[in-house]
């Protein structure tokens, strides 16, 4: 028999799994801040000069590259933990209700985090195969970075791609709208002095970041950014 230490016991408990979900979620949120900030450099509309400068930094700086491994792990843990939670949560109600008025007590997106997460994951597969994977593969093979800015300009000429990106941003919006403040609740950070701030930050973040992301393909498609 494997004797579980208090540590693994904690992390495999229902609250422990939620803790991992919250911590990885907040970590991924911090990544979104950087990602959105750097990509927003395209709005300088300087032919990608500022964007490429920072893109080069992100793609070559050793500290950033090390953190990138953490990022991939963060995604994997968040997804794996989400799947584990979904499995136990589903098993907890083997017979479902014939009639269910769930909208009377909760928002649809808070009940659909798994679905929204899956859509985001599908989007991420498409998105990374557009930019991140070819770029890193090329760096690995030749040591050279690809011209991401011009790749963006070409990729976002296709209206279907733009639509997929916008749909991905919508899923991210709803996922964040619940996930942001949910993470604080899970961590037990519920306090009269900070609840208002957390709720405000959560909503603002969920709107601003996906909107910024969505504007990138749209702006390039419509030729606002050249």
């Amino acid at each position, binding site marked *: 028999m494997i004797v579980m230490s*208090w540590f693994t016991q904690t992390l495999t*408990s229902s*609250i422990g799994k939620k803790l991992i979900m919250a911590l990885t979620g907040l970590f991924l949120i911090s990544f979104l801040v950087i990602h959105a900030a750097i990509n927003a450099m395209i709005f300088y509309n300087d032919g990608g000069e500022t964007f490429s400068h920072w893109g080069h930094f992100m793609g070559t700086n050793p500290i950033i590259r090390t953190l990138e491994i953490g990022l991939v792990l963060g995604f994997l843990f968040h997804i794996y933990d989400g799947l584990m939670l979904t499995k136990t*949560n589903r098993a*907890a109600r083997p017979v479902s209700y*014939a009639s*269910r008025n769930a909208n009377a*007590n909760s928002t649809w997106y808070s009940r659909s985090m798994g679905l929204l997460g899956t859509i985001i994951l599908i989007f991420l597969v498409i998105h990374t195969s557009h930019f991140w994977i070819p770029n890193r593969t090329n760096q690995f093979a030749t040591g050279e970075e690809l011209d991401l800015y011009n790749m963006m300009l070409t990729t976002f000429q296709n209206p279907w791609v733009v639509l997929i990106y916008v749909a991905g941003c919508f899923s991210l919006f709803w996922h964040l709208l619940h996930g942001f403040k949910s993470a604080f*609740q899970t961590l037990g950070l519920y306090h009269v002095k900070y609840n208002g701030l957390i709720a405000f930050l959560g909503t603002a973040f969920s709107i601003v970041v996906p909107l910024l992301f969505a504007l990138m393909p749209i702006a390039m498609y419509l030729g606002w950014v050249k």
Partner: protein
Amino acid sequence: MSEGNMRLTLKVWRQSNSNTEGGFENYQLEGISPDMSFLEMFDVLNEQLVEAKQEPVAFDHDCREGICGMCSMHINGQPHGPLQGVTTCQLHMRSFKDGDTIVVEPWRAGSFPVIKDLVVARDAFDRIMAAGGFVSVNTGNAQDANNLPIPKEAADDAFAAAACIGCGACVAACKNASAMLFVSAKISQLALLPQGQAERKIRAEKMVAQMDSEGFGACTNTGACSAECPKGITFDNIARMNREYLGAKLSSTNV
């Protein structure tokens, strides 16, 4: 019970025991008064069934005044029906319209198996309480509660958590059949009082461990539990439980 003139169609879950498959039966009711409680309406149905030499519908009830937590029907897709802040026994037929079809199901959760018809076993809650939801007094009598000075705010918060009647509506409402609102209320009511301090850590650890081993789901923070709770147990109790549990796990001496 005043005579009324509401006509209703009831779609009620019937199941003879936990080992058999159940199914819905339709019943027509007439002469229902809007002043009847939902349970009184079921009394009328059962009288009708007994007269017709059929098996009456089994349902849980005891106090019929909203304090015992026994009544447990899932009515038209919501635990304890469409009103907020009331138990099924405190729900009246005036909340429905003449000619309505009402769907009545038992709580649905793997940890609450159906015993018969609308009656489910909620002893999983008892086992969670037995795991740590108490203050040990190993010798002598419990001292008079008023001997311990407690600030009004702390007493109020503890009382608000202690208002939980253990009906299980939180589990029934939760998409994950999670018992976290119940367990968090029970952990909170003692964590907020001086009497609960000595066993504070072990209590959080044991009650959560028992909750998990009973097979309840985890919390997605949808807030459905709190919205459906007949006693208005607030959602911040779950945040407090998370703090209590994680803090206890990090700092208790139970390895």
